[in-house]
């Protein structure tokens, strides 16, 4: 099964620090979950999950074995990175962050001052896009309830799918 996986700027697992065998002309090697720093499986994203896990690098990944389809993530006993999504570079990451920043401020503006303390301040760099995406979703929620939170996340996912030409 094909999915997506974010890694850190230097090609490591974001939480495990695991040094992933990266694709180079061809797919990277298969990684088994017991090798990847004792985590209970290889974690990956469907496109809907991407906004929650935004990090430095994005790869398409192939998962093998029974894939556990959990809320917000996929977990499988084996995975191999197929290719890097080169379109997910620093400028794109910042553009995404900027979009989230703007959305957050749009929501805050609708509250006529009540949500000003929630709006992201200029000291937050656009590169902190995971954080900005979360803030935007929280602001959506303050105005429109939890459904609005999820809707905002769907919008973010759509932005990523479109700008990165995914699927």
């Amino acid at each position: 099964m094909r999915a997506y996986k974010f890694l850190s700027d230097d090609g490591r697992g974001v939480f495990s620090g695991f040094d992933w065998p990266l694709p180079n002309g061809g797919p990277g090697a298969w990684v088994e979950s017991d090798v990847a720093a004792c985590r209970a499986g290889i974690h990956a994203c469907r496109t809907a999950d991407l906004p929650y896990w935004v990090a430095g690098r994005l790869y398409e990944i192939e998962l093998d074995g029974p894939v556990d389809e959990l809320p917000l993530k996929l977990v499988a006993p084996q995975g191999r990175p197929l290719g890097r999504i080169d379109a997910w570079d620093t400028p794109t990451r910042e553009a995404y962050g900027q979009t989230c920043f703007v959305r957050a401020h749009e929501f805050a503006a609708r509250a006529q001052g009540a949500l000003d303390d929630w709006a992201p301040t200029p000291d937050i760099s656009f590169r902190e896009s995971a954080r900005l995406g979360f803030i935007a979703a929280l602001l959506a929620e303050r105005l429109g309830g939890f459904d609005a939170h999820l809707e905002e996340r769907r919008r973010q996912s759509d932005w990523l799918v479109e700008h990165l030409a995914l699927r």
Partner: protein
Amino acid sequence: MADRTPLEHGYSCQEVVELASEYLEGAMSSEQMTRFELHLNLCDGCSSFVEQVRATVGMARVVPEEEIPQELKSKLLAAFRDWTRE
């Protein structure tokens, strides 16, 4: 507790701080781990905190261990010889 709020919120910083040891022990359910990592991914403060705990553990590991006093060891060896003779 926190686990009744939507998964998509992740934990708060204050919750992460209390759960850091469980996370590092691998003693969390898959759902707890999702909440925890979702938050770590968006919060530099908590990422730093978890790294601080890791560093603390790393330093504790190299604290010199207690060494058995020679006198005590001699007494124990004598007792062992007595015991083997029985």
